[in-house]
């Protein structure tokens, strides 16, 4: 498989980092609940320990994988098609012709909004595909490109 050119915007790494911290916090809270259950309801101690290991291990793995995740996630938008690529051990690549796109959804949580990025979901008549983060300008350009094509009102395909 040849390489697709564009990597995601660099700032996406920061967002992935923050969301790893987020999952650390959530998992620590869950661990705390297990600890409370252990002290007050005599739940088994190994449950708390296992949970603690997961709470610390999962964010570490998540953080450690960020450079790889960044390096192997790519996209390309041309006049005729959107292409996406992801994964290293299991590499996937998908082509979605612009003419098949039914709708484009831009989606940004608080973190993405803060970084002026947007998640882009492209839906065809049967499948949906997501790019995890794009510069807002590029995302809007893609949306406009597809809207333009829709206005040119090709004879309905489906």
């Amino acid at each position: 498989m040849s390489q697709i050119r564009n990597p995601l915007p660099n700032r996406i790494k920061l967002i992935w980092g923050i969301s790893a911290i987020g999952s650390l916090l959530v998992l620590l809270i869950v661990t705390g609940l297990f600890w409370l259950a252990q002290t007050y309801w005599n739940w088994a101690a190994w449950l708390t320990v296992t949970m603690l290991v997961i709470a610390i291990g999962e964010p570490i793995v998540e953080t450690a994988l960020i450079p790889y995740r960044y390096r192997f996630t790519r996209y390309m938008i041309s006049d005729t098609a959107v292409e996406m690529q992801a994964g290293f051990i299991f590499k996937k690549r998908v082509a979605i012709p612009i003419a098949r796109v039914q709708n484009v959804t831009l989606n940004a949580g608080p973190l993405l909004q803060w970084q002026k990025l947007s998640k882009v979901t492209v839906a065809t008549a049967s499948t949906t595909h997501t790019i995890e983060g794009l510069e807002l300008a590029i995302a809007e350009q893609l949306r406009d490109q597809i809207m333009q094509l829709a206005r040119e009102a090709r004879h309905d395909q489906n």
Partner: protein
Amino acid sequence: MTKTKRTHPLGLLDHLAKSVKNWWPLLLIILAQNQSWWGKLLIPAAILIFVIWPLISWWSISYRITPTALEFHSGILVRHHEHIPYARIQTVQRKQWFYLAPFHLEEVSVETASHEDGKPEVRLAAVTPDVAALIDRYRQAANAIPTDNSTATSAEPVATPPVQATYALTSRSKWQFILTSTGFIPILLVALGIYGKLPHDLIERLGSDLAHFSVLLLIGGALVIALGAWLFTAVMLLIRYYRFRATRTNDQIQVAKGLFQRNTITVPLQRIQAIRFKQTIFRQWIAIQTTQLLLASRAAAEDNNDDLVLLPAVTQQQSYADLHPFVDWTPTTAPDLTALSVTNGRRWLLVRNALLIALVPVAIATWLWPTWNALFDIVLIIAFGQGLFAANNTGGSLVNHHLLVLQTGHWWTRETYLVPLAKIQSVRLRQSIWMKRTHLMHLTVNVRHGNNNQAIALRYLTAQQAESIYDWYRMNAN
């Protein structure tokens, strides 16, 4: 017919049936508790549900057929108003229960490609046949002239169009089709599961004299159940495919079948997402296969996973020749599918995967019930065979610049898909890190199917084979 109309009063039966289907436990409770005071309290509720509600819901449904759109109004508390332009209609389905036939009434369902709900956009429980005929005429006019608006509206007098192709089941192919159906297997498995729970106390009750017959009894009982399940599916198929007939007129295909409920589905040719030949291993032995249309609506949901059966049983060498009169863009003879085949060393990979999937459950089962060891080994042999079957049946090629043919072998069933370029929604390549070294790749072609996606996956192609299809698609899809 530009007035807003209600469906025929006999449509009430349909609403009543729906109420009974949803609320039948209430009826049972009332019958069981007819002495007690609170049982009587439920009677007004029952009247509301089984009499008043069906009446109101029948009353709330109305429709109007205008030259530009089909309008449908429904809902009691929340009113729904649907406007469907004729060009957006995917399928029109007419169902006639036997009790509606004397009154010349039928149920009409109209579906578009929208993803919403699992049900048709318009459903008229009891209307006269001229409703479907009128919708049909407007639709043909809307589809036939996409550019010139001035003529599109004058749809009124259209002569009955010539029939271009027909197909009816001959009794020989009908019996081949019915007797080789594998529909009984799921029923059989469930029935055997129940049966497996019975014998213990049953045999004990028969006494120890009969204990040595128990194995015979077990096997005999299992055979009876198998035969019963098989007969049941055969009868069901006979009823469902009674007087099967497919016809093509102009740009649409019509399929009619059924005994107690006559079911007629009309599809415009351009709405066909893909065509599939399906052949289980039993049917491979007698060389017949089924031709199905993959549609973007759920009209055929009762058939077989949303596929509309076009030709139930055709001999393998006739498949393409019989299909071509119905669908113009299909080839007239079987194309050579070796361009995307899995050969030699790569076949072993599919066998290995099938064995790996079977191995874990078999190992656990053998460990838990060592006495049944031999039975579990059969599973491994079946898995081995399935791997080989998948490898031998994988194939495909680009028949022409606009048509891709793909063939797969899943679950002892060979499926051949004819997919027009314009209907492929996306194409995906997958490659694991180990396959990179050996230059192998999986190819997935996505097409719309019912309200979902049909992923057609060809595994363990060479990178060159897979990429050639991917590049063809990327370059030409617009």
